């Protein structure tokens, strides 16, 4: 008995991990009500934990959970006595009968719908990545709040408001039609990248959950490419994430200190991931529609040359940054471009490029000050370098980055 109970709990946990998002997608796209779908699914999981240890694990646990969740939702309809509600109940009960006899593998993958809903333009921009984390990854509000550096109560409120808005507006969960698709897809890509970026720089390298988040974001990138083929920017995003992930083992030294790209041991870069990234980027480029993510992936691809024993082509990288700044000017791209200019024309030229950036954008932008510190040091401007290092250290929220910069600053004196 004890054994079967442990076994049931293990199966419930496994189904929750593997299939929760698919189940939620199926339920929510029908209901157009994320709260109701989430509640029904949570009830079904609770019911599974109660009954499976006694009655044994069903042959298809996922189908069982779907049937149980749908029954909850149908129960909800019973409260209304109208004729329409009666017919709706009957129709759903028929659907439920059919569904429970099919294996989940035979249903279309509906997770795409959750991605499009989470990144819907009606959802406020700051709620999109958190909502995606909750719907697709099943993370709780407190964890999401920590990831986005928000208070948990404020984050809960933001998530509830987003779901209410989706329900009140009666937004369709369908994957958008071709006309609307490009702009809606763009928002999905931005949101997946925001999830990846949030998980990218953990304050502490041992935080397992962030590793899982990155893996999930990459998995979503792969899913998107598979379910929506022929979208070059989706492939570009996947290539970009894979390149970043490939270098992760080299980004910290044994004491957790940050190691800048130039100084990384390329032997630690993951060759399989780099090759997958390159295949994706090559496939995207065939469409002749380079966008933001393809350009960013191309920059990473140029750096990856070192893994194959070749030098980095800085002129190519400069070209990619110029185009990136033309289509989507950001302070991040402008700062990175200045560092590339310094490579090609010398530190003074890089500093001059930094000089042109607006004060309001740089005053609390850490990478600007770190770049300025490095370039000032190369140019022999010791006092400027020290001041810029201080500013960069003070703006770091990562102890590994802080330790790296303190070390760099201390070495100027020599």
């Amino acid at each position, binding site marked *: 008995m004890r054994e079967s109970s442990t076994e049931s709990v293990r199966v419930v946990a496994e189904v929750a991990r593997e299939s929760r998002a698919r189940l939620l997608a199926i339920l929510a796209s029908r209901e157009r009500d994320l709260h109701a779908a989430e509640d029904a699914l949570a009830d079904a999981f609770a019911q599974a934990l109660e009954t499976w240890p006694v009655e044994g694990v069903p042959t298809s646990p996922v189908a069982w959970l779907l049937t149980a969740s749908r029954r909850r939702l149908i129960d909800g309809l019973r409260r209304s006595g109208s004729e329409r509600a009666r017919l709706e109940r009957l129709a759903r009960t028929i659907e439920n009968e059919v569904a429970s006899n099919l294996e989940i593998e035979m249903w279309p993958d509906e997770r795409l719908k959750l991605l499009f809903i989470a990144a819907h333009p009606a959802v406020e921009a700051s709620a999109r990545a958190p909502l995606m984390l909750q719907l697709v990854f099943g993370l709780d509000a407190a964890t999401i709040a920590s990831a986005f550096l928000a208070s948990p109560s404020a984050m809960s409120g933001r998530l509830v408001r987003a779901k209410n808005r989706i329900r009140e507006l009666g937004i369709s969960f369908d994957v958008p039609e071709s006309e609307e698709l490009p702009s809606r897809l763009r928002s999905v890509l931005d949101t997946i990248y925001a999830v990846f970026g949030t998980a990218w720089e953990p304050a502490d390298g041992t935080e397992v959950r962030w590793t899982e988040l990155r893996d999930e974001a990459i998995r979503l990138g792969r899913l998107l490419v598979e379910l929506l083929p022929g979208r070059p920017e989706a492939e570009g995003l996947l290539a970009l994430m894979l390149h970043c992930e490939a270098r992760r083992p080299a980004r910290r030294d044994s004491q957790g200190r940050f190691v800048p790209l130039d100084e990384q041991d390329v032997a630690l870069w993951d060759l399989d991931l780099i090759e997958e990234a390159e295949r994706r980027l090559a496939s995207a480029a065939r469409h002749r529609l380079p966008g933001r993510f393809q350009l960013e992936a191309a920059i990473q691809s140029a750096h990856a040359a070192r893994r194959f024993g070749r030098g980095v082509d800085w002129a190519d990288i400069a070209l990619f940054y110029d185009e990136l700044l033309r289509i989507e000017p950001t302070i991040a791209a402008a700062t990175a471009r200045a560092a590339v200019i310094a490579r090609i024309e010398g530190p003074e030229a890089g500093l001059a490029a930094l000089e042109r950036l607006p004060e309001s954008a740089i*005053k609390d932008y850490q990478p600007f000050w770190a770049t300025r510190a490095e370039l000032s040091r190369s140019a022999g401007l010791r006092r400027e370098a020290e001041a810029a290092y201080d500013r960069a250290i003070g703006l770091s929220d990562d102890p590994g980055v802080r330790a790296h910069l303190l070390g760099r600053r201390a070495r100027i004196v020599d």
Partner: protein
Amino acid sequence: MKYAVLVYEGLEDYSARTDSDRAGAYWGAYRAYSSALREAGVAAGGTALEPPDRAVSIRIRDEKRTVHDGPFADTKEQLGGMFLIDVPDLETALEWAARCPAAAWGAVEVRPVLVMGSDSAQ
């Protein structure tokens, strides 16, 4: 909006202040943090405190005074100082709190500064 960024540190961290191996990194991190606050135009005051073993606590109950050495509460991390910052919202305050060196080794608490109304300030 003004917020207090309250810095809590453990005994290990207080000893880093005077330990020759660690003092450089400790003070370097704080010096850089306060200069970043100043340069970004958000610094609105604050102070550092001597370690908790320099504290003396007083309570008065039923006209009876009790004075003892040390901080009033015996917790692992003790208040070591505070930064006052003036930023648009709590989110920005949390960003600055995450940059505070103690976030990585002790704890940092963010609290809105109480705004005294005309009634309560009498």
